[in-house]
């Protein structure tokens, strides 16, 4: 008896012979390009090598010869003319194959050079095929059955009902062998042979088949696998496969879980495994036949149930799913996908339009033409509407971003062994798409941090009298022209002692005296800070909270922490609604113009005459201490000093301050342009904008200015009384 190694020798010898025939054929074709016999022999050589290599599982040779065969097939069919270049190419292919065979013979693997040459040849071959591409490799029809859990008779049984056609045995097909084969896939727990169709003895033709079988079958297989048992006899029998009850619930679940796509009822059932492709095709064929009559054809679901291909409840589930998807789609149909670049360029143009329209307004005002001014103001209103509309196009709901965290929370809870539920609110809050895209990472970090460090273990929670299940909140809302996103937990809250100790250990501070809680909390945003005693694999990734803060600041946003010992902490991120156009308030200091976002402006008050720069930098605003920030001094401006100053009261992130300016110039729409490198060192500026007059105005970064005011105030006050500082600052912090 021959062995596989002998068979391999046969393969090598035979393939070498075929390659010689191939070479001979190709050389002949060089002289007589349409010698069909030569073409055939070249084709046959490739074809046979492919088939034989497949037997051994030499996939590399199979894949390569497949490409060559595809091209040769087209040549043979006259679809492709054999050029001299192609003959050359096939000769190279032949040589490559010969090399692959040598490698096989010496039992060595292909080196990179060989692979590259093969890839290059394949590329050339597919170029010959042009757009058509090679015939796809055959789908493995005879899938090797792999079953999980063995053939045990656990669970309930499949029911297979089969009626063989009269001619099966004449066609050489023995019903018994199919049934025995089915038995090899699992266990035939009951077979009932049905011979009701058997005619009286003298009419019975012993070469015809009158039998049918009702089979109960246990096995870890799917419907298609069972169907494939009967593949050769499929056209000569009636086959019904009913899944076991346990499968039924599996199908139901699958139908519910199939990703939402526009699936036809039949496809839905096929995908879930409830029916096979063939059952569907047969059902459709029946439907097609019935629809030729005058009456409308019965629904596919009914046909399938009637043919016992599928249970009614599965059809119902699929129909319900379909309805659900359609409803969603009818909503989705109202959306258009637009490339973000197009939107951006439109918004840019709208920005220019805003500036141009301001210019027109200015000229109209100068000419004092009443009708003109009226028309201009009407136009300005429309431009404003267009601007708002354009900005809204870029707005998306944050809900989708929030929903992504359901998975994160689930996975991380499992990883940590904590039971944590996620509570989402404000999912319909809208913000600029570019902001949404960039907020995901910082949010992920905060969420992980809260779950890892914030929420205690179940035992600790119970000991502290809290529900064992921790909760994590994601919330979003609009507040004075910005979007606030909160990540909150009901954990233990931040520990002042531990943060201070850590900060001292890291050399971030010397002592905590005079630091407010908020200031202490902010220490965790310092580079290299980690509060957990045990650095876990979740948060101890070397990415610290400092990166979170930087990411948020890059979006012109801020982050603050609210924490109460024992009841949890909340990280509050404030972000601008949009990054491109703002409603601004224009002010003048000296010869320059400055803009602050209008929604940060609370009010404007006149500063009493004669107050000079060396007077205290705060005023009493209706009993509230309001720090002042003199822009003239802050930016070191020169120019004529006016006698009366104005104070613009601004608010950001719960803090207030008064900006001292020379003149109030009113509202405007500002298209924010980034500042050049020159201004990079200047604190308190976030951009520039061009006024209708053509002049440039600088956009103030209120958050930075407020921070500056707070620091300066703290310094000033601490000089007076150390003891009162923290209290004061805390007030300023919480506003």
């Amino acid at each position: 008896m021959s062995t596989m190694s002998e068979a391999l020798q046969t393969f090598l010898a035979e393939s070498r012979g075929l390659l010689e025939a191939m070479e001979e054929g190709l050389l002949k074709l060089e002289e007589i390009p349409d010698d069909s016999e030569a073409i055939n022999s070249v084709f046959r050589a490739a074809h046979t090598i492919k088939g034989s290599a497949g037997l051994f599982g030499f996939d590399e040779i199979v894949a390569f010869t497949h490409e060559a065969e595809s091209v040769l097939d087209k040549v043979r069919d006259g679809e492709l003319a054999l050029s001299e270049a192609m003959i050359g190419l096939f000769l190279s292919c032949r040589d490559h194959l010969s090399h692959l065979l040598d490698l096989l013979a010496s039992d060595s693997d292909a080196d990179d050079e060989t692979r590259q040459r093969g890839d290059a040849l394949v590329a050339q071959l597919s170029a010959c095929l042009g757009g058509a591409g090679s015939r796809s490799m055959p789908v493995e029809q005879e899938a090797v059955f792999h079953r999980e859990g063995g053939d045990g008779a656990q669970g309930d049984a499949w029911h297979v009902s089969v009626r063989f056609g009269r001619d099966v045995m004449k066609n050489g097909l023995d019903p018994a062998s199919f049934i025995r084969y089915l038995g090899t896939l699992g266990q035939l727990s009951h077979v009932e042979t049905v011979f009701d169709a058997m005619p009286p003895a003298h009419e019975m033709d012993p070469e015809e088949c009158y039998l049918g079988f009702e089979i109960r079958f246990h096995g870890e297989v799917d419907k298609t696998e069972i169907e494939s048992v009967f593949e050769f006899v499929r056209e000569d029998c009636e086959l019904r496969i009913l899944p076991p009850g346990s499968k039924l619930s599996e199908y139901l679940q699958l139908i519910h879980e199939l990703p939402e796509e526009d699936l036809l009822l039949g496809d839905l059932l096929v995908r879930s495994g409830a029916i096979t492709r063939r059952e569907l095709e047969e059902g459709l064929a029946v439907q097609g036949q019935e629809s030729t009559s005058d009456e409308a054809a019965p629904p596919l679901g009914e046909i399938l149930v009637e043919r016992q291909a599928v249970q009614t409840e599965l059809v119902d589930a699929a129909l319900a799913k379909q309805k659900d998807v359609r409803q969603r789609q009818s909503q989705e149909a109202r959306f258009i996908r637009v490339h973000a670049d197009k939107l951006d360029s439109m918004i840019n143009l709208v920005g220019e339009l805003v500036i141009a329209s301001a210019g027109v307004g200015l000229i109209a005002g100068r000419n004092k033409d009443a009708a003109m001014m009226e028309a201009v103001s009407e136009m300005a209103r429309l431009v404003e509407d267009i601007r708002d509309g354009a900005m809204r196009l870029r707005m998306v709901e944050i809900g989708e971003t929030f929903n992504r965290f359901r998975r994160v929370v689930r996975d991380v809870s499992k990883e940590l062994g904590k039971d944590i539920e996620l509570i989402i609110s404000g999912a319909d809050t809208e913000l600029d798409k570019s902001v949404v895209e960039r907020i995901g990472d910082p949010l992920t970090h905060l969420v992980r941090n809260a779950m890892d460090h914030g929420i205690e273990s179940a035992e600790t929670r119970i000991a502290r009298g809290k529900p064992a299940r921790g909760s994590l909140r994601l919330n979003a809302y609009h507040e004075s022209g910005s979007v606030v996103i909160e990540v909150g937990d009901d954990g233990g809250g931040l520990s002042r002692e531990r943060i201070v100790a850590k900060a001292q250990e890291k050399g971030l501070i010397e002592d905590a005296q005079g630091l407010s809680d908020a200031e202490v909390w902010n220490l965790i945003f310092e580079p290299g800070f980690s509060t957990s005693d045990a650095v876990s694999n979740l948060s101890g990734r070397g990415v610290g909270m400092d990166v979170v803060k930087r990411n948020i600041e890059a979006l012109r946003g801020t982050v603050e922490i609210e924490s109460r010992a024992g009841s949890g902490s909340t990280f509050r991120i404030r972000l601008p609604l949009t990054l491109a156009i703002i409603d601004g308030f224009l002010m003048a200091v000296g010869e320059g113009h400055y803009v602050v976002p209008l929604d940060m402006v609370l009010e404007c008050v006149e500063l009493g005459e004669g107050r000079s720069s060396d007077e205290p930098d705060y005023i009493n605003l209706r009993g509230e201490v309001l720090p002042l920030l003199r822009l003239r001094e802050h930016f070191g401006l020169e120019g004529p000093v006016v006698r009366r100053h104005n104070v613009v009261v601004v608010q950001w992130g719960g803090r207030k301050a008064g900006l001292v300016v020379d003149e109030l110039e009113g509202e405007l729409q500002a298209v924010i342009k980034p500042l050049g490198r020159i201004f990079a060192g200047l604190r308190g500026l976030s951009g520039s904008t061009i006024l209708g007059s053509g002049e440039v105005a600088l956009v103030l970064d209120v958050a930075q200015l407020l921070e500056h005011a707070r620091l300066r105030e703290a310094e000033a006050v601490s000089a007076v009384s150390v003891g009162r500082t923290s209290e004061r600052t805390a007030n300023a912090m919480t506003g």
Partner: protein
Amino acid sequence: MAKTIMIVDDSATLRQVVGIALKGAGYEVVEACDGKDALGKLDGRKIHLIVCDVNMPNMDGITFVKEMKAMAGYKFTPVIMLTTEAGEAKKQEGQMAGARAWVVKPFQPPQMLNAVSKLILP
């Protein structure tokens, strides 16, 4: 008693590999290198199944099946045709000639064994 299977293919490698697989599964094997050779070997001996390539010199598989189905001693013998993925038209032709089972080339021995055991009892 072991069943006998005839392999008809012009590739010696295929005959040998399939032969090894079938013998390993307990079958007797008769080899033929083309349709003509195969007809010659249908000399009254009992053949339980024929594995037959379509594309062969001298006599192709379809012609062979037609001839074989006309022989009293072999007319009910099942045939597995070896086909290529592009052979849909050939498949029709084979169907007409009386072949019902198909295995697509390239295949590996276990696939052939599966197909065989669907068709004949051990």
